[in-house]
């Protein structure tokens, strides 16, 4: 059977499976819709969180990104995993004890202010929306590349699938579908990585093959010989200062992303929230520690197969021809010597490898069975759909729960709240789909926004709400606003070429820190301003101080004043 047939079959089977799981977990009440009835076992929540977290981009592009950044690619590896340590130790158990539905819920109640609630809701919607557009796009791309459906059709199919289990099942449907999606995506990633590790090193464990074989060192030597930057030497692509700040910004941002935080409301107990974060990071780390191995092996293998070969030899390789057609692999014999050679100089380089094909082409390059190619396509779709579903829920619950129920119409009945929740999630899907079909030109830039803003606004506000009993409404709100405005302004100025269309960036960097790392400065400003303002204004009311005492202790119900 051909690769396309296999892909169609495997994608079809996995989709039918997700629909079945979603249908079996449909819900009727708000607690089920927003927090899966708080009945999700810790380990299942871990797998769901992992699928929620690992986006289409981390599945398809991350290994490729690392293979181009070498050592400095560690900002993504450490940044996107280290944040879970902060989440587990500093936020998750206390938010679970607090036990409401959303992030704005906590911020609004803790700071006894609907202004704080609205600011948090707006931040949640903005962060989730920027993120989800990229997911729908990834769905469209996988469909068009593997199944020759056009991108618009691909996005519509993806929207229909997500709409089915998210609208019907809310958080409960999404959670169990994500558990299924995690299994598909990790199987696809591991089969690919193990296969190429075996082929190059005879060691089936990618993490060991990476450390104990000499492939990384050999790749480093090849890069030196070609005049490229060294692969295993630190700070070739980013300065040490930027590696530090980008890593920290991604960690703080990860811990502040609303769609990840709300997952910890779904487990039964505080102790489950703690261990569940451990399971989540374990499931994530299985992929994240394989990715650098895949990056090294795939790049080494590609260069070895293509570099210095004659055009005829390369044209005889099936996958080379196929990927050349997609435009992601380019051959051009510039000096006319009949051979294809890589070089650091763009003018002389004859082989251009797009970073997105590192993962997608590996099954074919490593000569794996056609069904593995199908599985990788299904894995990419699983990663994108599961993340999209989590983001859509976070976004719609900020509107339907925080804005509609808590601010506009506190007397709404259960049925009304469910109806608004379902309507909002459906609208959110349409908006995400629109951005998937017509992506705004700055999609690549918005990821820096999402993490920077989460790091500078939500993370400090939640952290201070738990660890600083004296923190009050005035301090928190000014802190959030200063952090948000500073970070937004800096990103716009530094990335003004893409965002405003200026010929030169309006600002080169903030004291040497680039747009991806500047959220850390925003977070620091948030902490300082919040502290100073809170000490100059009256302390929070006694019931709020009691609430803080209560969320610090696992046992016992919250007192009714706090429930207010």
């Amino acid at each position, binding site marked *: 059977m051909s690769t396309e047939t296999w892909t169609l079959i495997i994608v079809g089977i996995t989709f039918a499976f997700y629909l079945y799981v979603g249908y079996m977990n449909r819900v009727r009440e708000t607690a089920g819709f927003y927090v899966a009835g708080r009945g999700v076992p810790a380990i299942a929540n871990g797998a769901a969180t992992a699928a929620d977290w690992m986006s289409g981009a981390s599945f398809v592009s991350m290994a490729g990104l690392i293979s181009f950044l070498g*050592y400095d690619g560690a900002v993504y590896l450490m940044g996107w995993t*280290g944040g879970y340590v902060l989440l587990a*130790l500093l936020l998750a158990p206390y938010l679970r004890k607090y036990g409401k539905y959303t992030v704005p819920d906590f911020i609004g109640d803790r700071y006894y202010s609907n202004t704080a609630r609205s600011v948090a809701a707006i931040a949640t919607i903005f962060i989730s929306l920027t993120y989800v557009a990229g997911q729908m796009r990834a769905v469209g791309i996988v469909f068009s590349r593997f199944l020759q459906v056009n991108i618009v059709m691909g996005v519509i199919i993806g929207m229909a699938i997500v709409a089915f289990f998210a609208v019907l099942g809310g958080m409960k449907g999404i959670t169990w579908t994500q558990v299924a999606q995690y299994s598909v995506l990790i199987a696809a990633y591991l089969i690919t990585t193990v296969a190429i590790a075996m082929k190059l090193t005879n060691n089936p464990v990618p*993490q060991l093959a990476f450390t104990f*074989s000499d492939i990384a060192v050999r790749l480093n030597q090849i890069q030196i010989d070609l005049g490229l930057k060294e692969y295993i030497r630190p700070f070739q692509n980013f300065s040490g200062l930027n590696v*530090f700040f980008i*890593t920290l910004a991604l960690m703080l941002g990860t811990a502040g992303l609303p769609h990840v935080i709300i997952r910890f409301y779904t487990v039964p107990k505080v102790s489950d929230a703690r261990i569940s974060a451990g399971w989540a990071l*374990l499931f994530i780390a299985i992929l994240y520690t394989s990715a650098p191995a895949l990056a090294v092996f795939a790049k080494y293998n590609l260069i070895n197969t293509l570099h210095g070969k004659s055009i005829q030899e390369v044209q005889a390789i099936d996958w080379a021809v196929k990927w050349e057609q997609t435009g992601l692999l380019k051959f051009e014999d510039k000096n006319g010597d009949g051979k294809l050679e890589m070089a650091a100089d763009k003018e002389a380089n004859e082989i251009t490898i797009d970073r997105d094909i590192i993962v997608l082409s590996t099954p074919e390059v490593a000569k794996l069975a056609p069904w593995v190619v199908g599985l990788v396509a299904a894995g990419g779709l699983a990663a994108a759909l599961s993340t999209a579903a989590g983001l859509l829920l976070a976004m719609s619950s900020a509107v339907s729960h925080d804005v509609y129920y808590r601010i506009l119409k506190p007397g709404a009945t259960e049925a009304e709240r469910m109806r608004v929740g379902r309507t909002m999630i459906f609208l959110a899907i349409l908006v995400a789909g629109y951005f998937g079909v017509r992506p705004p030109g700055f999609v690549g830039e918005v990821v820096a926004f999402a993490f920077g803003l989460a790091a500078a606004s939500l993370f400090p506000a939640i952290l201070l709400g738990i660890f600083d009993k004296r923190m009050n409404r005035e301090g928190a709100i000014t802190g959030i606003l200063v952090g948000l405005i500073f970070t937004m302004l800096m990103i716009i100025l530094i990335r003004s070429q893409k965002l405003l269309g200026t010929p030169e960036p309006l600002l080169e960097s903030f004291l040497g820190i680039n747009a991806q790392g500047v959220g850390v400065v925003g977070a620091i400003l948030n902490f300082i301003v919040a502290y100073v303002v809170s000490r100059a204004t009256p302390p929070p009311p006694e019931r709020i101080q009691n609430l803080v005492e209560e969320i610090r*202790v696992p046992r016992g119900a919250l007192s009714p004043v706090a429930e207010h």
Partner: protein
Amino acid sequence: MQENRNGMAQAYWRANLKAITILLIIWALVSYGGAIILAVPLYNLRVGQIPMSFWFAQQGSMFTFVILIFVYSWWMNRIDRQFDVHEE
């Protein structure tokens, strides 16, 4: 009685903060220490066949993060029991 309970709650919170502090120091050491601040000196030491700082940057820090959360979970459950604030 109330006094005593408050004292216990504060002691519990102090024990909790101590656990968090120790674990976050390790968290910072492996990532910001091993892979960034000490990246250049550790480049000359090896883990297997690759430089130690490269190993910390792309493998070791992530392994440590996973272990830290499981240790935290175990440690906190123990503290909860010690102070009798664990959930039923």
